[in-house]
């Protein structure tokens, strides 16, 4: 059932209060972030329709926004999403090797999820950490100066979290 808790609904109300009256559409991006976090790491049609109802929008207004921004997942993803940067400065510092290593270690291609549903590997474009390359986004933070050892440790960390 796609419904925010009372506490989350209070948060939505608080966000809407940041904008002028009648401009609650401005809350769409933050509320989609909340919804993705709450409802399984991705935005199903049901989730987007729920958000549309909350903000008094037509569903299409939510779909067109959700499909524009790269951080919204429109398909299910693994429990742990590894998003490795591959733009110029990271490439110079060996991001291709890091991506290959993760592919080999998890036995998946970019864009795929492991059969146990634990990991999804994605490549992303510049995340603003060029001086700390190669890097990836994991959850709310960045993992920087990546090495094969750090990848091993991160994957272990994720598996432990899951037990």
């Amino acid at each position: 059932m796609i419904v925010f808790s009372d506490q989350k609904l209070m948060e939505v109300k608080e966000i809407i209060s940041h904008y002028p009256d009648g401009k609650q559409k401005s809350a769409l991006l933050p509320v989609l972030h909340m919804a993705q976090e709450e409802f399984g790491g991705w935005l199903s049609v049901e989730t987007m329709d729920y958000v549309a109802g909350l903000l008094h929008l037509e569903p299409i207004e939510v779909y067109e926004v959700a499909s524009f921004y790269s951080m919204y997942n429109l398909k299910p993803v693994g429990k742990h999403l590894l998003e490795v940067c591959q733009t110029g400065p990271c490439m110079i510092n060996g991001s291709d090797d890091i991506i290959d290593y993760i592919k080999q270690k998890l036995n998946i291609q970019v864009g795929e999820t492991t059969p146990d549903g634990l990991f999804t590997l994605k490549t992303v474009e510049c995340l603003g950490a060029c001086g700390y390359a190669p890097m990836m986004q994991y959850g709310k933070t960045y993992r920087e100066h990546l090495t094969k050892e750090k990848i091993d440790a991160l994957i272990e960390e994720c598996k432990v979290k899951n037990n």
Partner: protein
Amino acid sequence: MTKKLLLEKIDVPGIKTYDVYRREGGYRSVEKALTMKPEEIVEEVKKSGLRGRGGAGFPTGLKWSFIAKPEGIPRHLVVNADESEPGTFKDRYLMEFIPHYLIEGMIVSSFALGSNVSYIYIRGEYAWITDILDQAIAEAKQQGWLGKNILGSGFDCEIYTQRGAGAYICGEETALLESLEGNRGNPRIKPPFPAVKGVWQRPTVVNNVETIAAVVPIINDGGEAYSKIGIGKSTGTKLISACGNINKPGVYEIDMTISVEEFIYSEEYCGGIPHGKRLKACIPGGSSVPILPANLLLTTAKGEKRLMNYESLSDGGFATGSMMGSGGFIVLDEDQCVVRHTYTLARFYRHESCGQCSPCREGTGWMEKILKKIESGNGEMKDIDLLWDIQRKIEGNTICPLGDAAAWPVAAAIRHFRDEFEWHVNNPELCLQQNYGLAHYADDIQVPA
């Protein structure tokens, strides 16, 4: 040693917190500003010569003076923290380690512009930095620097953060405003400019994080004192984020009188190139500005030492110069392949094109495909001319500057490194195994050991 303004206190333990920040002299500029008239603050910013630090370099005081003041319609300040230009990570550094600096600058700037509700639009991936800013805003509010009737001045101000969700284009100011309204980040046709019709059709000023932070020392010490730092129209200090093949990647505050050579090779800054390798090329101002080969990077076509400032970096125009841009400084050593690097940038711009204008939507994808073809040893000589032709047809033919930003790196790579493209075409198997190397690009220059 460069005089530090923004990063002077960055190493003070606990500077992230309100108490330490205030003890170190924080929020003095708000106390001073609230005794001034808003017009006087705009005047000081004009006097300072401060130019927008996001990339365009437009004079900030002038931008502020454009804001329309229709009766009864609220105005807004929106800070652009959608830092997404490859090579650029300076705003993140400032917000992560000394967040109150931005908040302080925003309160002063909001007062100058008459904005009672101001926003920080921050890229969605900087989620933990948004939390840091929210914490700083809450502290500032608790101490009476935000809210109603600040310091008894009668001025009310609230600041809210808003996270984007992964879209480079939202760093373009009208796309940013669309996104803040909850829409797709499609840039608007100008005019009207945001200063007349911005967010929710209200007069709005959009400024970069570093620009707004610079307002703090300008108010504390006066615009004139600020204008005396630096050289010519490059006044004050500039944050440079340095990356690529250098010993000490990171964020540096420079006054804009130092040479590019000093910046790359001195221990105070990048500390030279690792493993004794030689400099091949550099993109000095973020991925959209033209790449320069080592010789033209260190010395202008006129034979003068190139300096780290707006005028010197653009000396020679696009034929032999580049741009200051956002200060994203990407260094490539002799082992780097310019074709491959340009390919990753073309892929970036294809990914980030909003799709509104066909020259950009179609052209960026086309350039990416051709560059990949050449890079993977399948290129033909005519592809190089085709690539040149496509970038020319994108430049200047789009609503926003993303089209130019995608065209310029490709144009500069062909302009300065055509030999390397031709070598790929002539050596389809060899180019998969080894890089073209330095060739003649750096043979005639003296690079410090």
